[in-house]
Structures are given as structure tokens and as C-alpha cells.
């Protein structure tokens, strides 16, 4: 008994953070900087910033099969992860092993996961777009789901706060529905993208082509260097030029002396104390030893990622909360969302053959939403809207496969770059629907014995109606620019994994924020209505999906929630 007591004492902290990705890193930084002894529990392996970026700056000829993962390995261990175009041998070590960590797809749903310190902050797309009241008021306006409990004015100072630290480069446009961040200078549009920008503005005054707003530095910040334009950020960035937990928030948390970081710590469930009505801590399974360990703290932050945090709550059911912890509303697990994409258009831009680029810009252009932003842009066939991400670049040797012939003539032809090709894909908002839901599977478990998620998620009528416009509007802008060979594409094939939910890797919802404890899991401060010292600040909290890349909003919500939690503890 004595040993048990000692063990419990050493496992007591002020705060527990589950997960070390974008949200967990921010929670760790904020909690430790406010003086709380904090343990971050990361299910995956440790990663040392820089040192463990094992493929960074490798030339293609230094990679076996030039970056391809052997098919047998991909099929056996990464059957889900390989569905994303990001999965190759330069980044394979940033993706979870699907065989060891299964889930059930009632409908095709691609769940892309990290399993290491830093999580998906190492592999994210880095695009950062603020939300506005067009988004926060959307559910109320449309009579869909529940109203967000916050408005732009609640989160705006927190956007400022996290952007100052994260470092966002981009161009200010002054659009009310896509507020500007605190920008470092934006990266350059190339010559063809600038041409597109001018022509689109002339033809469609409400549409803007701007450089992507990215968490990549164009000026040094806090010891992190400006981008050196090597290109493939996903391999890791030892200069810390893009924001990741590894480069930014975790080092800040370490510097306080208040951080304990424990990798290989798979959180099984949250411990609920019926006496106090509060979370007492969490149960962990050590991924290496399979030992069960308990950690206790005054406050618990779930930042494990959208579905993982909900899975933990579902697995924390007890007599008081038989349907999952903090689930008196019954909506936990429902309203899963993702952005629907992989629809757009491409074209060839003729007349720019004398121009080329220099440097590998890890960014492209962005076209902010221009549908359903006011009465003049109202659509009859769908609600909400979409933005575009795209880029222009000259084709290189890859076009040789389509070009007939072989020999010296082919080689000579491929020595020069091909024509400029422009391509864009839309990211569309997905509506929250109760039937898009996750539950625990009664029989399947992962290798730790934790029940697997059962995921059912499909695109609804509104998403499908939007897709036609997403392709057509892209094509009409490329036409307006005077480009040729304009061609619309849409990868979605209903019932298959093609452009199915999950692939956007913007999964959101399942533990939504709301004003009413009967219809939502979290309040306006990401605090569980039912369990006041339990906070969820990853994508689970989202009440609607917007069409903007969501991570900067998770950062702002996390910092804001920590501020609230610490004030509550001090009260």
C-alpha cells in the first residue's frame, strides 16, 4: 500500500494535457507559463526537434525507391494512411500504424493520425484563416444544429495572441468575412498567379486571389528562422520555419520548468470522481510496457484530436454517465464534419514561356469565400460556401510519360520546362448532422485493448449541391484569365473512399460547444458542461465547420480556454 501511495503522489500534477499536437502544444505552453505543473501525455513515440527529421533535405536519389513505400508495407500497416497523397517514405514515420490501431468504417471515412510527440503539427498544411461572424452566426442564421456560444469579438484577441507567437505570413485584404491575421509579409505570387489575380478581380469584383496565409515565417521570430524554400515541410523543419509543437509551443513549455512530457502514454479514459463531480485524472496504458498507470490533476485538457478525444470520453462511461463522460446531452460523438474538397479546375496558361520560378514555395494562392456572404451572393441551391487553394507552375519531366516517342529527342524536349499549368481545389463547408456519428465498437479493440471507434459519416445533400458550383466557379475564373484547356474535375465517387469524408484531415465536431447543456458537450470556454475541470480544445469542439482550415482557430480557442481554466482554479 505504501508503494501505491508514493506512486500516486508522484503522479499528481496541476494539469494534465492529453496530446501534443497543435492544441496540446498550446495547452502545455499556456498552462506551464501560468505556473501550473503540467504533464503532457502523448500516445506515440518521442521525437527530438531537428534530430529526428530523418528525411529532411534528402535528395530524391538518396531515398529508396525515390520516396515510395514498399507496397506490402503500405498494404499491411498503412491501409488507411496511404489514402492521403501525403503518405510516402519521406513522411511514413509521421503516420500511425493502422493495423495496430483499427477503427470501423460504416461508410468510407479516412482517419489520418500521427503517433508521436508533435502529432499532426509536423505534417499539417499550415494554412491559417480566421473565422468571422459569418461563420459563428451561421447555424443560428440557417436554423441548423445549435448556435455557437461565441462570436468573433470573443476570439479575436486570442487570434492576435496566438498569431504573434506562431508567426503567420500573408496579405491583408480587409475582408469582413475573412479577417486579416497579424501578418508577416506574404510570400510572392508567381507571374501566372498575378495574372490570374488581376483578371479575376476585373471579371468578378467580389473575388480575390491572394497568397496563402500560412504559419511559415518570412521573417525570423523567437529564434526560428525565415523559410529557406526547400519545399517539403512534411519532412520536418529543423530551422523551425513553420509552426509546430516541436518548434514552437513545446520548447516554450519546457523553458518554464513546469513541463513533464511523457511519450508512449495511451490515454484509456478520464477518471471521474462522483464525490466532487469533477475529473480526478486519467488512466494511461504505457505503450511499451502495457502497464496501467493513473495520473491525477486539478484540471484535464483533452487535445488528442477530434475523434481521439471523443473516443476517450466514450470509453470513460460510468454509472453517472453511462453514455460517455460529460455526455448528459447525448450528443457526444454526433455531428462529425470535415471539409469536402478534391473538386475544382485546372488549365494551361499560355504566353508566359519566358518566365520561370526560383525556390520551392511551400504555399499557393487562396481565393476567399465569395458565396452566401451577403444578399447579393445568396445561392438558392445550397447554404454556406467554399474557398479555393491552388497554384501555378511549369510542368517538368513528368509530362514525358504522356508525350509519344523516346530517345535523344524526348530527352532534349524534357530539358526545357513545359507550359504553365494552373490548378485549384475548393474546400467546402460541411453541415453538422446528427447521423454523422461515432460510437465504440462492441468487439474490435486496438492492441492496447481499447474499444475501437465505429465511424459513420457521409456527405449530405448540401455538400453535394455545392460541389457543382465549386467546379464551375473555378472553371469560369480560369476562363476569365484567358487560360486554355480549362478542365473541371471532381474526385468524389459516392460509396468509395474517393473524396470521402476524412481525407480533408479537417475532422471536426463530436463534442460541440453550445449554449445549452442539453444539446451540447462544451460551453463557450471549451469547458464540459457536466464536468467543470474538463476542457476539450481540439477540433471536437467545433459547432460548425466553416470552410477555412481550422487549426489557427483551435490554437486561439485553446489559449482562451486555458486562460479561463486557470482563472477558475484561482477563484
Amino acid at each position, binding site marked *: 500500500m505504501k508503494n501505491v501511495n508514493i506512486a500516486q503522489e508522484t503522479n499528481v500534477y496541476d494539469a494534465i494535457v492529453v496530446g501534443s499536437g497543435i492544441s496540446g502544444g498550446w495547452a502545455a505552453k499556456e498552462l506551464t507559463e501560468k505556473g501550473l505543473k503540467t504533464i503532457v501525455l502523448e500516445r506515440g513515440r518521442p521525437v527530438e526537434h531537428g534530430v529526428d527529421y530523418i528525411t529532411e533535405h534528402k535528395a530524391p536519389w538518396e531515398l529508396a525507391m525515390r520516396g515510395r513505400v514498399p507496397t506490402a508495407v503500405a498494404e499491411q500497416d498503412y491501409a488507411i494512411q496511404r489514402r492521403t497523397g501525403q503518405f510516402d517514405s519521406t513522411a511514413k514515420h509521421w503516420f500511425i500504424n493502422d493495423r495496430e490501431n483499427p477503427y470501423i468504417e460504416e461508410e468510407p471515412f479516412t482517419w489520418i493520425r500521427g503517433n508521436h510527440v508533435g502529432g499532426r503539427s509536423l505534417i499539417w498544411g499550415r494554412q491559417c484563416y480566421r473565422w468571422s461572424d459569418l461563420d459563428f452566426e451561421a447555424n443560428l442564421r440557417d436554423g441548423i444544429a445549435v448556435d455557437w456560444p461565441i462570436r468573433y469579438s470573443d476570439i479575436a484577441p486570442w487570434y492576435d495572441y496566438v498569431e504573434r507567437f506562431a508567426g503567420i505570413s500573408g496579405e491583408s485584404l480587409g475582408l469582413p468575412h475573412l479577417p486579416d491575421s497579424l501578418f508577416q509579409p506574404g510570400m510572392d505570387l508567381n507571374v501566372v498567379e*498575378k495574372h490570374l489575380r488581376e483578371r479575376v478581380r476585373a471579371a468578378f469584383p467580389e473575388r480575390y486571389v491572394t497568397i496563402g496565409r500560412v504559419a511559415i515565417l518570412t521573417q525570423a521570430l523567437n529564434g526560428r528562422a525565415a523559410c529557406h524554400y526547400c519545399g517539403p515541410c512534411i519532412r520536418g523543419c529543423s530551422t523551425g520555419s513553420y509552426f509546430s509543437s516541436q518548434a514552437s509551443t513545446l520548447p516554450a513549455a519546457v523553458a518554464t520548468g513546469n513541463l513533464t512530457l511523457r511519450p508512449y502514454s495511451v490515454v484509456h479514459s478520464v477518471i471521474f470522481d462522483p464525490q466532487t463531480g469533477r475529473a480526478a485524472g486519467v488512466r494511461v496504458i504505457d505503450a511499451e510496457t502495457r502497464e496501467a498507470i493513473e495520473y491525477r490533476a486539478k484540471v484535464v485538457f483533452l487535445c488528442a484530436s477530434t475523434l481521439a478525444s471523443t473516443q476517450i470520453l466514450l470509453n470513460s462511461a460510468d454509472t453517472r454517465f453511462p453514455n460517455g463522460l460529460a455526455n448528459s446531452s447525448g450528443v457526444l460523438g454526433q455531428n462529425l464534419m470535415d471539409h469536402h474538397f478534391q473538386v475544382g479546375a485546372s488549365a494551361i496558361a499560355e504566353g508566359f514561356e519566358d518566365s520561370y*520560378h526560383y525556390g520551392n514555395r511551400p504555399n499557393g494562392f487562396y481565393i476567399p469565400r465569395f458565396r452566401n456572404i451577403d444578399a447579393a451572393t445568396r445561392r438558392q441551391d445550397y447554404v454556406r460556401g467554399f474557398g479555393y487553394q491552388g497554384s501555378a507552375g511549369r510542368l517538368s519531366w513528368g509530362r514525358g510519360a504522356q508525350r509519344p516517342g523516346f*530517345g535523344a529527342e524526348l*530527352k532534349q524536349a524534357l530539358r*526545357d520546362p513545359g507550359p504553365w499549368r494552373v490548378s485549384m481545389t475548393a474546400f467546402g463547408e460541411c453541415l453538422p448532422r446528427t447521423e454523422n456519428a461515432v460510437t465504440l465498437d462492441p468487439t474490435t479493440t486496438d492492441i492496447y485493448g481499447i474499444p475501437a471507434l465505429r465511424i459513420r459519416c457521409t456527405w449530405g445533400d448540401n455538400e453535394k449541391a455545392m460541389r457543382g458550383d465549386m467546379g464551375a466557379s473555378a472553371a469560369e475564373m480560369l476562363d476569365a484569365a484567358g487560360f486554355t484547356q480549362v478542365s473541371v474535375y471532381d474526385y468524389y465517387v459516392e460509396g468509395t473512399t474517393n473524396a470521402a469524408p476524412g481525407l480533408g484531415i479537417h475532422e471536426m465536431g463530436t463534442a460541440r460547444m453550445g449554449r445549452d447543456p442539453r444539446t451540447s458537450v462544451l460551453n463557450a470556454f471549451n469547458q464540459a458542461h457536466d464536468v467543470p475541470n474538463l476542457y476539450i480544445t481540439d477540433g471536437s469542439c467545433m459547432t460548425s465547420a466553416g470552410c477555412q482550415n481550422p487549426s489557427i482557430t483551435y490554437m486561439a480557442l485553446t489559449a482562451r480556454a486555458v486562460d479561463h481554466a486557470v482563472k477558475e482554479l484561482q477563484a
Partner: protein
Amino acid sequence: MDRREALKRVGAVMGGTLSLPLISGVLAGCGGGATGTAAFVPKTLSADQNELVATLSELIIPTTDTPGARAAGVNEFIDLMLTDWYGPEDRSRFLDGLAAADERARTAHNTAFVEVTTEQQIALLTAFEQEALASQGAGKPFFTLLKEMTLTGYYTSEIGASQELKYVHSAGYYNGDVPYTEVGRAYS
């Protein structure tokens, strides 16, 4: 001496009965160059097939004022792709294509594909290309597999990426409107 030439001569002296390990030994002993790095031992291709693949790849991307596919070790890349990337159907179709190349060379010229003149090789390969362009069957035809693997293997090799084309590792900055004459080559 050119390793391929050396092999031919040795093979002729010994009546064409060189065992596979011996050929590998000879290949390894010539210090690299002719079919990529010296120590290369193919996993899927036989020594003869490996030499045929090196010959075919060099027809697709020949040596000009820069080295071609053979010097870039494209045969090694193709062997690896056949071993670890392609499934059994594509692999069989490719290996069948290699056999067909030899068979057609023997039918037309009474000797193996690697032995006929370059002009004859080009004519034979052109026929394969015409058949690939006309192909309606499932799966990529032999020529298409060969050409795709050769282009990928060559332009991602150090020779193809940095001698034939331009390889920029860490540019330091981005400029989206550079006169092409200042660059002069496609980026790899």
C-alpha cells in the same frame, strides 16, 4: 573496358555458359558505370534481364551531352520497383515484355535484343510503343511501364536531376518571375 563489351567477350570465349553468380561477379568486378553501381545485385531481374533493362532504358533516355539512363542506374530503380512496388500482374507483364523483346530480336535478327544494332533495337522498341498506344487491355502495357519507370528513375537520379536538369536544394528565397534564360533548364 566497357563492362557490357567485356561480358560479351567472356561469354563468347566460354561458349555462353557463364553461370549467374559468375556473371554477377564479373559485373561487380568492373568498378561500376555500365549498369549502375558496382555492388548491385538485382532481386527480381536475372543478370540477362538486368542487362536487357539497362539497354532498353538507355534507348528511352540515351547518353547525349549528359549521361543517359544506364549511367544513372535506372536498371537498379526498375529492379527495385518490380520487387517492392508493382504487384504480380504488372511485374509479370513487364517480365513477359522483356521475353518478347528478346524473342522478336531472335525472330528478326537471330540473336538476343542486346546483341542487335542500336538501329534494330530502336525499330523493335518503336513497335512496342505502337502496340502500347493502341492497347485497350487492362493494366499498363510493357512499353508504358518501361518508359514511366525509366523517366522516373532517370530524372530522380543524381545524374538526371542535377546534370541533365537543374536541382535546387534550398533556394533561400522565392522568386515567382525569373527570366527563363537565367535558369536555362527545367527543375527536376
